[in-house]
Every structure is written in C-alpha cells, then in structure tokens.
C-alpha cells in the first residue's frame, strides 16, 4: 500500500494524454448523446397527452416544456423523462393547460365556411370534431380556431358532435355550447330544417340543455303566375300536404277557366297557419287580373298585376285582405289594364258568346248567390260591356227542367237580376241592362242527363 502511494506521485504525466482524450471524447460525443437522449425522451412521452411539447437537451439535462391536461399527467410526464437511462436532470417547465370558465365551444356557419372556435378539451377531441365537421359538411371549408383548455363538461365530445350535425342543417347561423347550455341561432337550410334541429336536440347527452333555440325557418313560399300569352297558370313553391295540394289545384281549375294549370308544387312541412284559407282567396283575386303574379311568403301575400277594370282593382285592393286569417298581410300592387278598343254590337255579342261558351256564371245551388269562383269571368264580361258602351244588353237567366216551372222561372229571374246588380255595382249604368228570366223554356241541351242540365242552367248576355 505504501508502494502504491509512492508510485502514484509519478502517475501525473499520463494525465496530459488523458486530458487530450477527454477533450476529444467530449468534442465528438456531446451532440450524438444529446440527440439520442432527445429521441429517448420523446419516445418515453409517446403515450402521454401533452400540448405544445418541447424537449431540449443540453449535455444530459433535459428541459421539458409542455402543457398538460391534468396534474397527474403533468407529474407523470416529468417522471417518464426522468426515468430515461442517461438523463441526469429534468428541468421541469411544464404547466397545466389553462382552465376555461365557462367552457365555451361554438361553430359558426356563413356563406363560404364553418368556423369552429372556443375551447376543446383534448387534442384528440379537437381532431375528431374537425374531422366530423369536414365529413358532415362535404365540401364546405372548415376552419378550426379552437384552443385547448381544461374544464370541459362530461360527454362534451358527444354533445359537440351532435351540434356539428345540426350546423349542417343551417344555411347560416351559430351554435354555441357554454358549459352544458346550448344556444342556436340562424336560418335553416331547408323547410323542415328548423323542426329537424329541434328534434335532434332532444338527443343531447344527459345533463345538457337548450338555453335558446332561435333557428328560423326559411320563408315558406308559394307562387302563382298567370301568363296571358301562354294562357297558363303556373303554380310553384310549397304546400303543406297532398290534400291541400289537390284542393288548391282544383280551386285554380274552377277560378281560371281559360288557363291551363301548370302544377310544380311540392309538399313540405313548415307552412304558416291558415295557409289554404289565405291562398284560395288570393288565387281568386289573381284570376281577376289580366296578367299577374301572386307571391305568398310566410304570412305575407303580394299580388301584382293588371285588373280588367277600375272597379275590379278597387275591390281586389280593399277586399282580399279581409278574407285572410288573422296575422296575414296583404300587399296589393294592382294597376288597371288600359281599356281595349271599342267594338260594335255584333263583335260585342260575339265576345260575350265566346266567354260564356268557355265558362258559366255559377250560383249557389238553388239560390241566386253568385259564387266567388265566377269573379274572373264576370270581370271579363264587364270589360267586354265597357267596350260597347252604346248597346243595351239583356241578361237572360235559364234553368234546367228539374223542379216546378214557377220556381224555375222565379230562380232564373233572380239569378239574372243578381248578375245585373253585380254589373251595376261594378259601375256600369243600370239602364243598359234588363234582367229577364226564361225558366226552363229555352234549353240548349237535353234535360235527360246531368251534363245537359248543367248546360241549360246558364246566364246569357244578349246585345239588343
């Protein structure tokens, strides 16, 4: 032992090459060592969920900077890196992801894109929501502006996924999830979309509730266009159901005796209350115009076009709104068609005969009350009467042979008088018209079948 102590005094010269070795070893090994430790540390954190993770290595000291989603996750991450072989020290620069209070997540849709904003609980749910949004919205640009935060309510992912399904049903709008309260605003993409969203919200996960649902339905549109050139009535837009659809088309057929009805209507939910009760009289008013458009948008009825004479215009402007159910608005834009050129008595008679050949003035069964469906025909008869102002006209009432002749006679007279009164009310001079009832004495068809009897029940205009 003493010898060893003595010899050791002579060991120092070897220290000089040793220092050279050391310098070379340090020079060549530091960077590979650091790279190896960085790789091993990254591998050790593979299964740990962290945000903004940054690992830097100086010598054998690892600096770990990251945001963790729980205290356990944070300490676990530091411990994982400390346990990597070769690591001397871990400089712990980790912290917890900030807590959002309240935890707000929202999806907003405008014309070109959907923007996700607010907070997401974990990178995995952030990715899943973005993926789901892209899948649901096929083709629409999705911008993810969410930041990670703690404090999400339980079952957040399920709730957010359900809400993303709803954003696909909106044309524009915003859905906000604030803790467990859902608020929606905007416009549904299609009729029925609002109802579909409301129904889907019933499936929100337990604990979630709807604070405000201000999703609006798109306007419920019904349009009718009377084209005098093509002699068509084109119906487009929506009707509530097939029964009302059939009823509207039948009413159009009765009111528009000349025009062919082109039916492009589709059935859809979301109609305002009293839809049929407003649209049928509005179609009646349209039938009185020479050319015109009827637009029903939700509870607003716009009728524009040319009335055949001044009195008709006044009647339509003042009268139609009164027929509507409560809450409906009528916006008439009615002008009067310029008067047609005067004609002589022969032409006038021919025009009357043509009109009455196409349709008959119709009355309530057994009564002398003119039905509303005949308003369009009467307007045309008035327009024709205005073209031959110097003629006198006999309004001739006829019935079929059913019933007692005296009552038929009386009914034909009353009906002729009712028509005369209608014309006078429209502004024509009373002295031009004489109402005559012929009962069933002048049939134009056989009274032995329904069709013939229907032809015999008629009002004729005879120019004198």
């Amino acid at each position: 032992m003493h010898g060893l102590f003595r010899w050791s005094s002579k060991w120092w010269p070897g220290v000089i090459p040793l220092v050279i070795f050391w310098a070379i070893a340090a020079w060549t090994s530091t960077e590979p060592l650091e790279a190896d430790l960085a790789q091993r540390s990254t591998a050790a954190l593979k299964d740990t969920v962290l945000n903004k993770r940054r690992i830097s290595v100086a010598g054998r000291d690892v600096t770990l900077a990251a945001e963790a989603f729980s205290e356990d996750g944070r300490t676990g991450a530091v411990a994982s890196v400390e346990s990597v072989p070769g690591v001397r020290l871990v400089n712990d620069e980790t912290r917890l992801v900030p807590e959002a209070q309240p935890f707000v997540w929202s999806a907003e849709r405008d014309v070109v894109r959907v923007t996700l904003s607010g907070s997401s609980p974990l990178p995995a749910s952030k990715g899943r929501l973005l993926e789901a949004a892209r899948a649901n919205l096929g083709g629409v640009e999705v911008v993810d502006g969410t930041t990670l935060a703690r404090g999400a309510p339980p079952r957040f992912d399920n709730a957010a996924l359900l809400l993303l399904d709803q954003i696909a049903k909106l044309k524009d709008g915003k859905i906000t999830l604030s803790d467990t309260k859902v608020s929606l605003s905007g416009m549904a993409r299609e009729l029925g979309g609002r109802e579909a969203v409301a129904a889907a919200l019933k499936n929100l996960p337990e604990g979630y509730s709807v604070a405000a649902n201000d999703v609006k339905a798109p306007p419920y549109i019904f349009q009718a266009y009377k084209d005098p050139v093509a002699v068509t009535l084109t119906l487009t837009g929506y009707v509530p159901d097939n029964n009302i659809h059939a009823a509207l088309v039948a009413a159009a057929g009765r009111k528009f005796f000349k025009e062919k009805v082109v039916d492009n209507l589709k059935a859809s939910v979301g109609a305002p209350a009293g839809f049929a009760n407003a649209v049928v009289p509005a179609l009646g008013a349209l039938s009185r115009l020479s050319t015109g458009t009827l637009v029903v948008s939700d509870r607003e009825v716009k009728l524009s076009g040319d009335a055949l004479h001044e009195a008709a215009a006044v009647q339509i402007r003042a009268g139609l709104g009164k027929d509507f159910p409560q809450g409906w608005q009528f916006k008439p834009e009615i002008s009067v068609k310029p008067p047609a050129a005067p004609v002589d008595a022969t032409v006038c008679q021919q025009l009357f005969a043509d009109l009455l050949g196409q349709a008959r003035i119709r009355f309530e069964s057994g009564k002398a009350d003119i039905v509303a469906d005949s308003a369009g025909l009467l307007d045309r008869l008035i327009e024709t009467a205005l073209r031959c102002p110097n003629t006198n006209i006999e309004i001739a009432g006829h019935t079929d042979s059913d019933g007692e002749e005296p009552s038929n006679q009386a009914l034909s007279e009353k009906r002729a008088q009712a028509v005369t009164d209608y014309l006078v009310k429209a502004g024509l001079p009373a002295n031009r018209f004489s109402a005559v009832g012929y009962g069933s004495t002048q049939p134009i068809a056989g009274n032995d079948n329904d069709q013939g009897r229907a032809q015999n029940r008629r009002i004729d205009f005879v120019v004198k």
Partner: protein
Amino acid sequence: MAYLTTFYWGWLLASLLLGFAMGWISVVQHGEGVSKKLRWWLAALAAALVAAAVARVVPGRFGYWLDLGLIMFALYLWGCAVGSCLRDWVVSRSAPPA
C-alpha cells in the same frame, strides 16, 4: 453511469489502458514525483469535483463533460494502480533475492 459506459466504452477503455501503461512505467521510473503537499491539494480538488458531479450543481453540457472527465480519470487511476502493482510483482519476482 451505466448508460455512459455502454455509450463510450471505447474512450473509457483507452483511459484504463493509458492508466495501466502509466502505472507500469511509474514503478521503475526515476526522478521526482509530485510533492506530498501538492498531492493532497490535487486529491482535495478531485474530491471537490466528484462532490460537484454527485450534487449535480454544474448544469448542461459542462455537467456532462465533468461527469465524463471524472469517469475517465477514475478509470485512469484504476489502470495506474493495477499497472503499478503488476509491474511491482513482475520486478520483485524476476529480481535476485537480496
């Protein structure tokens, strides 16, 4: 430490062999060695460096270099001790008895 030895065993072996060679020579070398007083100072310095390494007070790369240097130095000393003992044994065996 285990990690370092597996990572750089070549350099460590070189230190050991260098120490062995130095120890081998030192037994028969003539001339003055390091004085006793200086040796104590050097030992104190080495102890201080070891203490610094164990306490991990030197940060980053310097800390790593210190660790590496100390391990190489320890192996060097171990090599010296083994080399000296062996040489002494060889010399005493081959020398004629006094």
